[in-house]
């Protein structure tokens, strides 16, 4: 990749970007409004994007509200993460035939999926994708389903110019600025109330190729600076922070701590946090067969360490108390993930805070173990 060139495109050129990606036969996914939230869905044209909408988020609260302008990416994050495309919530492993106790696995007849293009990936989400790459395809055993779906994916990042009150990516070192070369194209949406343009930058050769098909003008220094400042504002506007100094030892050494009982009184063990988390990767396997027993299927689906069945062995589950299950989740995320994969398993997206029905805040819980809870942290 040669020196990156930053260009200015007018907002309408996002439509051309979608067409250029479609022309390359990508299945394009991006933000769309569904059930009162911004979710990721098929995008065929610029009109599918959530123009003029933003999200209000707080611990246990989310609402979609109109903006005063026509921003296409004027929200922060919805409940879904891109992992649903690479690591599907439910996927069939195979069909099998069973004749009098002799089985045969049937050939897979499904045609391989087209490579995906993801439009509107935030910096924290790029970090989450990199983390799942590490866990699911870069270890001694690769998950073939993940690797096949991940291969060739085209990533269009959109940098954040605003943070939700639940965001803490800056303290996790994952955002809000997109690191060079981590996306094929990085966009920054600017001046949405007036002349509405995007600063665009290619991070890969194929990104540069797609970008060259748009109408663009070289970005001026002033425009580049304005975009950088807008992203810096998202950073300085973050109110939640997670102190990562000594984080691993903090969790490991406080296996017994009164805070676990306290959080267990609030935690509903509903598993929402694990479902919305962009890095949680646990899965379970389901076996099914028809009534006659001749046709059988194996399915894989997302699982959660918040269920009692998760840790089941003969004689009973290992982690029966809500306290033990919450402790497992946060300890894995912030401590043992470091032992396993070299970094914490949290990118600071704040989804687990927003989508917790009890408003439990991972940053507050980690801080509580240090013995200094800043309750002001959680108020708007």
């Amino acid at each position, binding site marked *: 990749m040669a020196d990156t060139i930053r260009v200015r495109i007018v907002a309408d050129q996002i439509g051309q970007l979608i067409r250029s990606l479609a022309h390359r036969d990508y299945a394009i996914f991006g933000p769309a409004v569904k059930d009162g939230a911004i979710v990721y869905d098929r995008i065929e044209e610029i009109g599918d994007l959530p123009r003029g909408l933003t999200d209000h988020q707080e611990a246990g609260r989310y609402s979609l509200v109109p903006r005063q302008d026509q921003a296409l990416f004027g929200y922060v994050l919805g409940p879904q993460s891109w992992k649903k495309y690479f690591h599907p919530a439910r996927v069939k492993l195979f069909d099998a035939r069973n004749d009098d106790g002799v089985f045969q696995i049937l050939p897979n007849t499904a045609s391989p999926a087209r490579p995906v293009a993801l439009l509107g990936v935030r910096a924290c989400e790029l970090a989450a994708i990199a983390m799942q790459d590490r866990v699911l395809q870069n270890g001694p055993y690769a998950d073939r389903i993940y690797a096949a779906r991940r291969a060739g994916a085209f990533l269009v990042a959109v940098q954040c110019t605003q943070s939700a009150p639940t965001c803490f990516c800056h303290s996790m070192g994952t955002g809000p600025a997109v690191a060079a070369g981590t996306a094929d194209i990085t966009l920054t949406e600017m001046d949405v109330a007036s002349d509405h343009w995007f600063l665009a930058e290619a991070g890969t050769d194929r990104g540069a190729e797609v970008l060259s098909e748009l109408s663009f003008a070289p970005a001026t220094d002033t425009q580049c600076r304005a975009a950088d400042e807008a992203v810096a504002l998202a950073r300085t506007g973050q109110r939640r922070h997670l102190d990562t100094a000594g984080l691993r030892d903090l969790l490991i050494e406080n296996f017994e701590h009164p805070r676990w009982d306290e959080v267990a009184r609030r935690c509903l063990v509903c598993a929402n946090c694990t479902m919305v988390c962009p890095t949680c990767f*646990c899965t379970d*396997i389901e076996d099914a067969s028809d009534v006659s027993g001749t046709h*059988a299927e194996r399915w894989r689906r997302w699982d959660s360490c918040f269920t009692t069945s*998760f840790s089941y062995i003969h004689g009973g589950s290992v982690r029966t108390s809500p306290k033990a299950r919450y402790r*497992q989740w946060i300890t894995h995320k912030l401590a043992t993930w470091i032992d396993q994969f070299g970094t914490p398993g949290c990118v600071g997206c704040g989804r687990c805070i927003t989508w917790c029905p009890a408003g439990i805040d991972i940053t507050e819980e980690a801080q509580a173990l240090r013995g200094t809870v800043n309750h002001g942290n959680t108020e708007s």
Partner: protein
Amino acid sequence: MRPVPWVVRQVTKETPDTFTLVLDPPKGARGRFTPGQFSMLWVCGVGELPISISGDPTRPESLTYTVRSVGAATQSLVTRQAGQTVGVRGPFGKGWPIEAAKGRDIIVAAGGIGLAPLRPVIYHVLANRSHYGRLTVLYGARNPRDILFRKELAAWAKLPDTQVFSTVDYGGVSWRGHVGVVTTLFKMLRLRPVLTTAMVCGPEIMMRVVARELLARGLSGDQLFLSMERNMKCAIGLCGHCQWGPHFVCKDGPVFPFSQIAPLLDRYEL
């Protein structure tokens, strides 16, 4: 993640609830494994289970598993008929340190079905007798009718440089052997702690007390190995279920040196 069909040669009843399955490979396959490793055994349409290999590692022409029937999936496994198939994935995990233990005395301490993953160690030591020192088998079962591999235990006891001590928790009127938990056998042991490697498998509470006794008798935590059980589903460290502290028991274990896991053993609901 695709189970390979192996053919059931025979299913033998070991005790009222425990059975040994011998599986023949599909054409061209062999059943090579390290003692202590496990396979995922799948009954089509019913479920899949992690089962330790209990057979002879020097005979890869078949795979042998000893299974206690405790639920729907294990029940369907032990009621397979000869000629039917069982899906096999694996072998998986890190096994017993049979190479590192060469030249040393071996203690095998088992509780209940925990003897199954240790039997391949005994086979291996007996097949390579000159490479190892004394072999001591300590075995505890709940009651006399739950004793696994009874004939083999008696046969091993007659071999040179080999001692076998069995005990039961509840003896009953006809039992003339030892009664008490496994650790009560230690007083009969002539241990050379510096020369000894111990391999322990059984319920977690049994492994903890056996470890404590062996350490108290001067055995090093680096020469004491435990086989841990957690919920293993994928067996390759991807599904997350078997996590125990920082470890994926399926791929980092199931056999761990005591010195590596000592701090975790005391953590309830870890």
